[in-house]
């Protein structure tokens, strides 16, 4: 098969090629993007165009059948944003035909993102496309291409686990909670102590719809402040044994130099809570919870190292999935290019 010429091209820069100070100077607001889409076509620099501008990338997808489009478009970008070309030329990339198709498929599916596998970028690509199509800047080629990229992104979400498998400590905690409890909407969290990572974990669990949260701290005021933040309730540190019956997930991160929860205490809790499972997450260093607690039936204790180990494991799985995702994108690019040949032979 010879090289298929579709005239689909993309010029742009992203988080890998350009520093944030360069990216922000070339970024488009919605109004600027609308204006630019019109200008590009008025000036005869492209037949169809879509501008994708996010905090990690600025890209201009376009269809044009002239070979010097790189020069004219890079100059155009420089003039439009009034940034001198040498300032950003080194960061620019330019792809055409199957390379451009592959690039868009990878961007839409999150393979080109800073955090590989993130899903938000698909929404941004959709917004960029709808803005362009609503102003009439897209035509038959980019319409088909972008619709296809949404499909490819969805396929990747469904068929690879690139998007699951948490790789941060707080999301591993959420994942474990879901492995144990399934739905979290009847569950309550007890947060003992405070700290960035523990609050982040609570935040994630709240996003997953936990029923309630109880905050406890050596300083009651601090507990109250945390409780207020997450619309929970505050208790004094010596009162946690009274509320333990009603909590399902304990997150501990105090600055105490010794264990604050021992096996016999937690064993007492378990009788009180009729052996319902309990997930305990000990983020503190030095640790807050006696590791012997993990020996109790129906108690699952994870300390910071355990969480990191799970995260590492997930990361390895994700690398494996990456290969699968790459070959999936490859087959979709081929399918798209084959369709382009048919399209060209008809038109």
């Amino acid at each position, binding site marked *: 098969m010879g090289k298929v010429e579709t005239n689909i091209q993309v010029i742009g820069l992203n988080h890998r090629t350009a520093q944030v100070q360069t990216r922000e100077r070339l970024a488009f607001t919605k109004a600027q993007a609308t204006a630019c889409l019109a200008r590009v076509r008025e000036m005869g620099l492209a037949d169809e165009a879509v501008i994708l501008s996010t905090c990690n990338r600025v890209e201009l997808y376009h269809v044009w059948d002239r070979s010097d489009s790189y020069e004219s478009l890079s100059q155009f970008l420089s003039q439009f944003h009034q940034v001198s070309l040498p300032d950003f030329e080194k960061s620019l990339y330019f792809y055409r035909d199957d390379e451009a198709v592959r690039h868009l498929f990878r961007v839409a599916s999150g393979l080109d993102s800073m955090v590989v596998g993130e899903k938000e970028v698909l929404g941004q690509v959709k917004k960029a496309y709808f803005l362009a199509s609503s102003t009439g800047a897209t035509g038959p080629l980019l319409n088909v291409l972008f619709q296809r990229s949404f499909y490819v992104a969805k396929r990747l979400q469904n068929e*690879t686990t690139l998007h699951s498998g948490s790789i941060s400590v707080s999301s591993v905690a959420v994942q474990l909670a879901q*492995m*144990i*409890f*399934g739905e979290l909407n009847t569950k309550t969290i007890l947060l003992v102590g405070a700290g960035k990572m523990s609050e982040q974990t609570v935040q994630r669990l709240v996003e997953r719809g936990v029923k309630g949260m109880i905050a406890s701290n050596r300083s009651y005021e601090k507990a109250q402040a945390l409780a207020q933040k997450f619309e929970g309730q505050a208790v004094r540190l010596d009162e946690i044994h009274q509320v333990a019956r009603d909590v399902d997930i304990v997150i501990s991160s105090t600055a105490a130099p010794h264990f604050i929860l021992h096996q016999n205490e937690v064993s007492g809790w378990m009788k009180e809570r009729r*052996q319902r499972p309990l997930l305990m997450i000990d983020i503190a260093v030095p640790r807050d919870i006696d590791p012997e607690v993990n020996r109790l*039936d*129906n108690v*699952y204790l994870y300390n910071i190292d355990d969480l990191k180990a799970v995260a590492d494991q997930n990361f390895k*799985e994700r690398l494996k999935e990456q290969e699968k995702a790459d070959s999936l994108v490859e087959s979709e690019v081929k399918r798209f290019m084959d369709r382009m040949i048919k399209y060209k032979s008809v038109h």
Partner: protein
Amino acid sequence: MTFDNAFFLGTLFLYFAALASYAGFLFSNRVVLNRWAVRALMLGFGFHTVSLIRQVFELFQSSAMNLFAVLILFSWSLVLLTLLIQSRVRMRMVMGIVLVLVLALGGIFFGLPRYFDKAIPSFNAFWFGTHVLFSLLGYAAFALSLICGLLYLFLERQLKLKSTNSFFYRLPPLESLELMAFRSLWGGTLLLGLGLASGLLWARWAGLPLSFRDPKVSAAIITWLIYAVILYVRFTARWRGRKVAYLSLVGFLAVLITFFVMNYFSKGHGFF
């Protein structure tokens, strides 16, 4: 090939297709495969039901029964109960294991004689049929409880050891497994209780010399008592989770002994 034989072969084929699609889905995550699996499964269950009609009819008409009929009735009950559970919680893994079991039973016992070899006094055939049906549903519920319990033990161990892999994430949540194991335990105890009661009533009305001293009858009652104890322990929340799962292993061992081994010792209850 007889009518129900053809349907039973169709059942096995469709269950196999469903199992293969589930496996494909687990491997590739292609949603379309899951859809195919569900279709094949439902159709297979329909075939399974049709292939049973004559046997159940005979059972309620003339108390006729044989091992083959018992086994396909058992596997039908197992699929039915799993479908009922699955309507509440997504449990493809459980259904997959059930299908493997059903296929193995069907495949191994396909060659068994189909004629109804034992003439059992046929008065009060209705109570006899009820006895067979409830007992088999009860045993199927225990088998389901065992499957959920084994998966529970596996996942529990992984969580305690903190070792995770991609297979781990495909299992249903721990609490759902426990709940399903418990519910089927509960249902099984109830169903087997009804099965035993209707069996004793029937024997009494039929004037059979069947007594509590018959090994099969006493084994069934012991089995039932074991499960009743497990339920008691679980209800009073002394034990939960791992220990209950181990206990239900013991319970199922009793089921197997009652179901297969005791026939050789029982005089009055040696059918199939």
